[in-house]
């Protein structure tokens, strides 16, 4: 579930107007021999269709495990963990420990997922599971979400091992096999398999932090350090129904409509946490003295200034950043055109602020909707409340140094709260802070094709990501 790239700051006064060099034409700093190795592994994993239900994810795990084994990681530190996700989906996680000979710090976790969203041959211009290089891009399902991250984090480690680098802390690689569907792998990884994954913090390679706009302006690196919790609720009304020629005073559709009118007007209380505070400080700088900039500063100065928070939330760039949001996304009701409805259901999708219990949101929605409406969470996906990860100076320093060495010293690095959800949420919920720091990028919005058609990643974004991760390992485990 690649998060949405926050490539929004085109109007930002603080964005420097860089010379318009197409970033796709800048040669990668990765040596040619390692480009070839990276390309070969990338090809193999892209051509393994690790879609839910196809039973191919274990093959990806084996491909990655072989790389670590060949580089000298002992068999006892390589674990392929089979498990079942959705019914009938036999998948696996890969857990690899790169031991420090003399650890001075607690282990560091590197997170990724090996599964991809379904892709149909007839929907694509080309076979999504045949690796292609074309026009400065690698193409195929998973090239941006996120087999690129799997390959970059693995290749960077292999490269450092070959150079004789010894980490000062254990680095644990955890690649799950059902992030796109159920998150069972991340659930097990953060609980039952914790003896293999215990770490001081985690770095998630799911979703690149960087992007360029179509004029090739560098839009900076937004590091997600928190995620809203995804939770769908069903609003259901019941009625005895009857013949539509004899309308009853009560009606399941009217009862539901009344609740939806309330939902439309309902606003959750605005909340600031350390992540959103740092994010809005950056945004205030970018916006300068325009109305949005002033509203943000007023809210930051007084977190109880609800009117200022409402004004920020109302801006199209900031929707969802100031509070929990719930929205009606689907409706169904009735069973025949000429019968009074016996039931009606609205699907209400919520994105809950980190640290807030979905049960509390349910209670707030139930109180709002009233006793005629039953509010229940979707039993197929029960969201787990996730605390925001504290802004670690060591992580931000390492990311800043590595990103700027690759993309220039004027590149902005700032935290963001993702409105989507990923494996990171499961580890955050169990006490391991997680930061989404992968360096890959695309041209926004034309390369935003995760889950979509003709997915792709620029070739040099892929190769540079290997360089980037070697710098991150050296910085944080050197």
């Amino acid at each position, binding site marked *: 579930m690649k998060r*949405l790239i926050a490539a929004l700051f085109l109007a930002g006064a603080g964005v420097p107007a860089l010379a318009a060099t197409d970033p796709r034409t800048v040669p990668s700093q990765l040596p040619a021999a390692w480009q070839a190795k990276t390309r070969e592994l990338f090809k193999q994993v892209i051509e393994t269709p690790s879609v839910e239900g196809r039973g191919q994810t274990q093959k990806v795990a084996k491909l990655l495990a072989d790389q670590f084994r060949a580089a000298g990681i002992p068999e006892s530190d390589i674990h392929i963990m089979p498990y079942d996700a959705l019914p009938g989906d036999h998948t696996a996680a890969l857990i690899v420990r790169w031991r420090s000979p003399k650890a001075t710090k607690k282990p560091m976790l590197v997170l990724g997922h090996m599964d991809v969203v379904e892709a149909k041959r007839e929907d694509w211009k080309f076979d999504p599971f045949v690796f292609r290089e074309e026009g400065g891009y690698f193409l195929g399902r998973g090239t941006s979400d996120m087999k690129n991250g799997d390959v970059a984090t693995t290749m960077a480690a292999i490269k450092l091992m070959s150079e004789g680098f010894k980490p000062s802390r254990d680095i644990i690689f955890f690649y799950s096999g059902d992030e796109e569907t159920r998150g069972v792998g991340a659930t097990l990884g953060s609980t039952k398999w914790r003896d293999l994954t215990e770490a001081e913090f985690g770095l998630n390679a799911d979703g690149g932090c960087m992007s360029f706009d179509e004029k090739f302006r560098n839009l900076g690196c937004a590091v997600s350090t928190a995620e*809203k919790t*995804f939770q*769908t609720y069903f609003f259901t009304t019941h009625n*005895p*129904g*009857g*013949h*539509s*020629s*004899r*309308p*009853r*005073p009560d*009606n399941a*559709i*009217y009862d*539901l*409509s*009344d609740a*939806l*009118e309330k*939902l*439309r007007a309902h606003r959750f209380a605005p909340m600031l946490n350390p992540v959103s505070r740092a994010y809005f400080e950056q945004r205030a700088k970018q916006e300068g003295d325009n109305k949005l900039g002033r509203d943000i500063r007023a809210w930051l100065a007084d977190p109880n200034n609800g009117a200022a928070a409402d004004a920020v939330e*109302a801006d199209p760039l900031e*929707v*969802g950043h100031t509070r929990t*949001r719930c*929205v*009606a*996304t*689907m*409706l*169904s*009701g*009735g*069973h*025949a*055109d*000429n*019968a*009074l*409805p*016996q*039931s*009606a259901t*609205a*699907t209400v*999708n919520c*994105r809950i602020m980190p640290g807030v219990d979905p049960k509390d949101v349910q209670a707030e929605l139930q109180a709002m909707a009233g006793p005629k409406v039953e509010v229940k969470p*979707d039993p197929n996906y029960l969201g787990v409340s996730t605390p925001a990860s504290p802004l670690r100076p060591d992580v931000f320093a390492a990311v800043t140094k590595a990103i700027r060495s690759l993309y220039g010293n004027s590149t902005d690095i700032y935290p963001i709260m993702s*409105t*989507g959800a990923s494996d990171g949420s499961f580890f955050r919920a169990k006490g391991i802070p997680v930061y989404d720091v992968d360096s890959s990028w695309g041209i926004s919005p034309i390369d935003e094709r995760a889950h979509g058609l003709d997915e792709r990643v620029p070739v040099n974004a892929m190769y540079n990501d290997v360089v980037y991760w070697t710098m991150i390992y050296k910085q944080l485990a050197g």
Partner: protein
Amino acid sequence: MRYLLATAAAAAFASSAAAAAPPQLTAAQRTATHAMFEHVVNTPTVIGRHKVPEMAEYLAGQFKAGGFPAADVHVVPYHTGSQTTGDDETAALIVRWRAPGTSSAKPILLMGHMDVVEAKREDSTTDPFVLTEQDGYYYGRGTIDMKDGITAITQAMINLRAAGFQPKRDIVVLFTGDEETNGIGAKKGATEWLDQLGHPEFGLNADGGGGGFNPDKSPAGFSMQTAEKTFAGYTLTVRNRGGHSSKPRKDNAIYSLAHALDKIEAYRFAPTLSETTRAYFAGREKLEKGPLGDAMRRWLANPNDGEAADFIEASESEVGLTRTRCVPTRLFAGHADNALPQLATAMINCRIFPGVDPNAIKTELEKIVADPTVVVTRNEDNVASLASPLRPDVTAAYTNAIHALHPGMPVFPEMSTGASDARPFRVAGVPVYGVNGAWVQVPADFRAHGKDERIPVQSLYDNVVHWQLMLRDLAGK
């Protein structure tokens, strides 16, 4: 589309029937009736399930086994469908019971429909397509709308034939297969099949009429349906650009639709009196001594007394009789739980006062909603329905049959709030009378189209006797 009357009522028609012990079916006839009823209720003749032809074949077999010549028993397959209902291959059953020799009188048409409204297992206490007998009731989809009438007409004809009865004029049966959805069978019946039906003089529809008892067992009256409201479906449609649900837009198709529905909920159409409803309420007020009767008297004295009409309309027994009513029946919106809806629609079902143009109601709905982003369209092209003139012979036969089974029961004319197959025949000049003989307890058994539809066990058997009496009276003289 069954309307069940809902009233304690005045005796509008006098009866000539002498008091006698109510006639009954024999034990063998009850057994046969039960078996047929169970078979047809257990056949889920919902649109899209392709089961109507099977039910038509079964009934055709029953007629033939009962001695009707195969040449006069026809299963007529036809296609039904529309954008809102989906498509199905359905069928009609046409049976002709020929009078010996030549008759100068045109045939009597007996009408019913074999299809039923959808019923979901999870919305029902028992499986709606397994006939269940419990506490003196038969439960199941179609038990009162209207497989009771189908069974009663069929059994009555078989029983009469077995008893040696010979009609003095032809009796023609038309059972349609899509009354609850598109009414194509009735339209064909009133046009391209009219020759085969022998251009009937009038129709007797089992999907109308009927009666009831109050909870204290006192008679609530039987009605004869002579007029019906016009059935018209409308769709409210809202479109939106949509987007990712983590970033809600200010405008949302579902919220716009909900707002429109709330306005429809609050709206009341203007009350109207017609000749039929004036006669009905004139009869009703005589036995209503309380506030409901006072409101009827005030409204009859002053048709502009909207407050009185509103009071009557709010009474559970009179819903839909004072004006056009519209109600939302279905909702559809969205395509994924994590995406903002691009499309939201609601089906609005209207029952329009006879004589009012359904296009005028579309305009009125647009005014009520008062939002140009909510688009109102019609689902079909029904024209305004007409009333049938009262015939003394039909009125007498119905009243006599009712009184033979329920001495002293009030009987009166009625405008049905529902629509039925009768409409195209009335438009084509064949008057139709809703004269079914089933009875229920009011209002607890008003469950047509709803949850746990049911009919009292004895009512099913009484209805067979009722149709035997009616046919002897109208075709035996």
